[in-house]
């Protein structure tokens, strides 16, 4: 199922504050996209709008080229998994999963045996066949999460909307479920939109990331594009650790305020600016400055960590490659791989 939003705007109830501001978004059939951004960016509001939970808006919201709520649009083709799962706590796991089928009009409803078989299939899919009769409050977070997913999948939706589905899970379960979800998406031919504030998770699972800030989409691109050409400093900072070097451009040269950072040629116009750079892109050039390493260590994730003291300040640099600079040796910082945003205010 494809989703299209054109200049979609939504206001906070009873005020003129925009929760979503002129959103233009296209999600093709079969895509797996992630809505990322800090809390309050409007990710969940956008997801709820796509799910049809926000009836009041301005602009266009098309599902399969039909306006949402249109009578020709097949109902129950959207599966929604809530942040806190929203399981029906007075029903067993099996009843929770079959709910979407139980409430179908009699003519469309499969018979009892078919529903039971479907529930059993889904329970096996989520690897919890032994918990059919359990109550939601007897399950662990990861199990509840999977039941919520099974419930959303029972009506065979084509569009799956997930609101921070891994929020309450521990890192190991998180990784397993993430992979499992991606496989499921591919197997069932779903269109999936996932909301998360964890950019690593998003990079890992989604084809495309939609970065949001203050109710707007800042950038909509795949992981590689986001890495090589982030649109704004915010996108760059949100997607990973970033170092900033203030300075000025003079006659085609960037001259950092940090005297131990080395000037490098640029094509931008003269004036003050800031260079943004990933710590791992900073190179140590021996003999060209007064910077030195205060301490070095290797993190459990395999990265090398250096505490660097320059004349003006202290920097933390984490990088996958060890440096050949030795203790007490002085060096300069090559930041020519950094990025200058000429559209800065």
């Amino acid at each position, binding site marked *: 199922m494809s989703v299209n939003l054109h200049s979609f705007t939504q206001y906070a*109830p009873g005020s003129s504050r925009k929760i979503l501001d002129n959103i233009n978004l296209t999600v093709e059939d079969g895509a797996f996209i992630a809505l990322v951004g800090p809390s309050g960016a409007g990710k969940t509001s956008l997801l709820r709008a796509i*799910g*049809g*939970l926000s009836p009041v808006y301005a602009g266009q919201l098309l599902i399969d080229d039909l306006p949402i709520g249109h009578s020709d649009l097949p*109902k*129950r083709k*959207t*599966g*929604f998994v*809530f942040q*806190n799962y*929203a*399981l*029906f*706590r*007075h*029903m067993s796991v099996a009843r929770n999963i079959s*709910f*979407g089928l*139980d*409430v*179908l009009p009699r003519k469309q409803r499969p018979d009892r045996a078919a529903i039971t078989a479907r529930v059993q299939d889904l329970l096996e899919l989520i690897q919890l066949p032994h918990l059919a009769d359990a109550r939601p*409050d007897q399950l662990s977070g990861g199990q509840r999460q999977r039941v919520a997913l099974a*419930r*959303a999948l*029972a*009506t065979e939706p084509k569009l799956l909307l997930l609101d921070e589905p891994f929020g309450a899970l521990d890192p190991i379960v998180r990784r397993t479920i993430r992979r499992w979800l991606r496989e499921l998406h591919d197997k069932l031919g779903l269109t999936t939109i996932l909301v998360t504030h964890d950019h690593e998770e998003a990079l890992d699972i989604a084809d495309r990331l939609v970065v949001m800030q203050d109710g707007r989409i800042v950038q909509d691109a795949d992981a590689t594009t986001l890495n090589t050409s982030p649109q704004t400093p915010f996108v760059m900072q949100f997607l990973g650790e970033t170092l900033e070097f203030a300075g000025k451009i003079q006659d085609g040269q960037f001259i950092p305020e940090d005297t131990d950072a080395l000037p490098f040629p640029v094509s931008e116009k003269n004036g003050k600016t800031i260079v943004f750079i990933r710590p791992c892109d900073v190179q140590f050039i021996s003999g060209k400055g007064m910077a030195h390493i205060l301490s070095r260590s290797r993190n459990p994730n395999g990265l090398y960590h250096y505490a660097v003291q320059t004349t003006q300040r202290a920097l933390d640099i984490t990088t996958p490659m060890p440096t050949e600079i030795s203790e007490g040796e002085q060096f300069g910082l090559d930041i020519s791989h950094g990025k200058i945003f000429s559209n800065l205010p």
Partner: protein
Amino acid sequence: MTTARFSISRFLLCGCSYAVVLLMLLLPLVLIFTEALRQGLSAAVSALLEPDALAAIRLTAFVTVIVTVTNTLGGIAAAWCLTKYSFAGKRFLIMLIELPISVSPVIAGLIWLLLFGQEGWWGNWLAAHNMQIAFAVPGIVLATLFVTFPYVTRTLMPYMEQQGRDAEEAAFLLGANFWQTLWQVTLPDARWALLSGILLTTARAIGEFGAVSVVSGHIPGVTETMPLHIETLYNGYQTVAAFSMAALLALCAMSTVLLRTLFEHSFRKQPS
């Protein structure tokens, strides 16, 4: 030292509470039953089988059923509106719903007399159309409805508040319509709170005296509910009959309270 003093004060406090409860609550109950059974069980039973007594019991049952059903439906609707939606005048509406708790039942009865009585606003119109509300069963039903209106709403509201809208939204997204959501999701989840509210309404409807007394007109066998009939019997020096009826009323009230306590117990055991 301190713990010892604490346990002494605790003992004293508990002792006092028990003494008060025994004296103020249990003693009257015991008294009712001893008075009722003073001339033996058969005398008490035959007093209850008098035509006027039977009529009073029937009327009370009739009123209680109508009032409980109506106020349960109204209470669910009100609690739903007040907790799941936000709209202008919501606080005012909550205040209005609580009004019957704070207003004296006598005033609740008077309101209906002022509206529907012969001297009331609509009295002439009603008389012209041959309808009798004041000093008749409809008046009694209306008065009882008014007095017992808040109970279902007030017991449901805190629970529905903490329910939130998530489960309902999930049901909607799974294709359930409004009624399916109400009957299969919202109410089953709030069932203990709802039952507790219904029982409270029932208990109050059975025992209502003040409001009913004003609108009923005390016509024996016609507009006398059980509490009113007790008063009539007592004033007519029919002590055994009065206390038999009172004992029956007390039994009804006690069983509803007992049921409610049981429900609340299982409600609290249910993990949230």
